[in-house]
């Protein structure tokens, strides 16, 4: 009787979690690249949804289509067919300017190579998206200072990227990605260029920030060590979804930890 009730509770939690409005949805997305006159399908009929305030990890070997999928979720690439919906908006129908504004307001990016602007210091790199948004200087200052504090770089605010270590640069990139309080943060192999210790620290920081700001992170990696940090896992192989595993959002009373469950096919 008790086991039956527990199974029921788990199923209800999973369903409730899925019924919450997703932050991003891909439906039957296809993408093919033309390489030297040869068509190479990189994404084939992929449908996924990204849950709000969850840490989703895209796992798969190199060339499996992780980056392409992230690019489409990040609204910097468009599918050949299928729909992309981010924050409730059908983004593949937006104009270039509208997409730029949409990205600025809703999406944060963390890149493998950090991609900080080398002529701006740490403070200014974090501030830049806020300047684009036209935020008042006082509010900007408060927010950037808080973010610098949150990523532990308040004392490095005036340092140029060249004067920071790889881990510090990625911290600045995380702060920049979060500066406009986006709905979704895209992180494409953010630990790939870091040593394992720094990578683990960055992963922990991202997880911490994701929980603190209740933002959806979607994170690509080919490293299976990141599984422990994920709420949801999406396995990609050859441009197709191989498996989706989602953790229950609620702490399992019996184990005291989250547990993955296969949620079956996506919409």
């Amino acid at each position, binding site marked *: 009787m008790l086991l039956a009730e527990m199974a029921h509770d788990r199923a209800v939690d999973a369903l409730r979690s899925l019924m919450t409005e997703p932050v991003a949805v891909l439906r039957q997305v296809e993408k093919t690249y033309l390489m030297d006159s040869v068509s190479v399908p990189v994404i084939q009929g992929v449908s996924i949804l990204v849950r709000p305030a969850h840490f989703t990890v895209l796992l798969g070997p190199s060339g499996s289509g992780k980056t392409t999928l992230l690019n489409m979720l990040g609204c910097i690439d468009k599918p050949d067919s299928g729909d992309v919906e981010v924050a409730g908006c059908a983004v593949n129908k937006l104009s270039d300017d509208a997409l730029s504004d949409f990205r600025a307001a809703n999406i944060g990016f963390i890149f493998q190579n950090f991609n900080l602007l080398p*002529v*701006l210091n740490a403070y200014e790199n974090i501030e830049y998206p806020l300047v684009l948004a036209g935020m008042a200087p006082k509010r900007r200052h408060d927010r950037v200072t808080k973010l610098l504090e949150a990523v532990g770089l308040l004392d490095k605010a005036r340092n140029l990227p060249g004067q920071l270590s790889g881990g510090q640069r990625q911290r600045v990139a995380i702060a920049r990605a979060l500066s406009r309080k986006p709905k979704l943060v895209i992180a494409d192999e953010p630990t790939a260029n870091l040593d394992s210790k720094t990578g683990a620290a960055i992963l922990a920081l991202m997880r911490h920030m994701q929980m603190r700001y209740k933002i959806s992170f979607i994170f690509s990696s080919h490293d299976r060590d990141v599984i422990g940090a994920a709420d949801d896992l999406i396995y990609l192989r050859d441009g197709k979804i191989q498996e989706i595993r989602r953790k229950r959002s609620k702490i399992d009373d019996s184990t005291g930890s989250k547990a993955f469950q296969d949620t079956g096919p996506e919409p």
Partner: protein
Amino acid sequence: MMTWSLALRNLLRNRRRSLSTLLALAVGAASILIFGGYSANIKYIMKTGYVRSGGHLQIQHQDFFLYGSGNPTAYGIPDYDQLQKFILNDESLRKIVTVVTPTLQFDGVAGNFTAGVSRTVIATGFVAADVNQMRQWNEFALPLVPLRFVLEGATPDAAIVGTGVARVLRLCEVLGVANCPSPAKEPKPAGTALPADIAQLSIAETPAVTSREPRIELLAGHANGTPNVASLNVVLAERQGFKEFDEVAVILHLAQAQKLVYGRAPPRVTSIMVQLEHSSQMENATIRLKSILLSKAPKNSLAVLDFETLNPFYVQTVKLFDTIFGFIFVLIGSIVLFTVSNTMNAAVVERTVEIGTLRAVGLRQSGIRRLFVVEGFLLGLVGALAGAILAVFVASVINRMGLTWLPPGSSEPLPLLLRIKEETAMVSGTTIGLVLIAVLSAWWPAYRAARLRVVDALRHV
């Protein structure tokens, strides 16, 4: 504001490349301005020369300029002294006029009887004191010391001739004209000598080749058609600007000229020269003078001509220099265009990933375009301003060197000056022009950068 700061920092990032681009721009701008300064100096020297010698405006019979050389005295202005008074007493003109003076020009034949030579000449009678006053005009503050018109204070029969006239009339030696070649002496004929009595007669008829008295006889047609002769004392042989004029010029007192041409009849003049304080007053003065002519001398068919109309060589020279200036600007502008374009193209390639990042974080295409165009603008502005400063510096060095040159139409070497800082329109026009070219050069790379696909830009290695 962030765009400007970002653009400036990006330029400072690759200092060597930015510096070489700025250097090209600065040298280009300086070259344009130095030529412009040289050209301006020539224009002002020529203008000053023409205004000093003929005034800004001349009142003439309406046909004198085109047909007067055939028969100048037929186009004389009667009662010119009355007209002169009207001008000098006019409420609006008297404030802006510096000199109003009559002249009489006529054709004649000048002969040196003692040397047995003569030639056709163009004689002009001036009021000597007025000419000296006109020679003081110096609107452009040129370091030109006006030559004194030696007829002032000279005897009524005094005259000045062109060095060409002095040469032909064999007056060089007596007038102390330098570089004045004498004709080769004819070789003595071989053969039997003339009989003594005939040789004696021949010697009696042959005048002395040179004279110790620099006198000439000027034969002119009297207004009534009869010939008249005046004996003139040549006080100076003065080089006139153009050889053609130097070979025919005879200058004398107006009163002497009038006596020769009109005898006892009421004297006339062929022109009334009007010199103004400033050239910018020409338009207003012309309007007023025309109005005076219409009311005071309606039957005389008089016209007001400006110095540009009277001296087409000046206009042609100015146009020539303007054309060369334009050509140099286009040439250097093209170099600037390609230099800045090359710099910006290299910047776009180097910063492709940054462009992708900026676009990813939400900067619109127009923002990318603006960023690169602002970089081009800053390059152009700093380069052109540096060029202007360089040009002013070079000009100040050259202007202190005291160089001289002989411009076309001038009878004496004139100071070689580069007028740059005084030419604000030229400096600002050149600066703005080069900045616009730099902006234009940056436009295509900026457009290309903005059109990059974000994913491609981020993938760029």
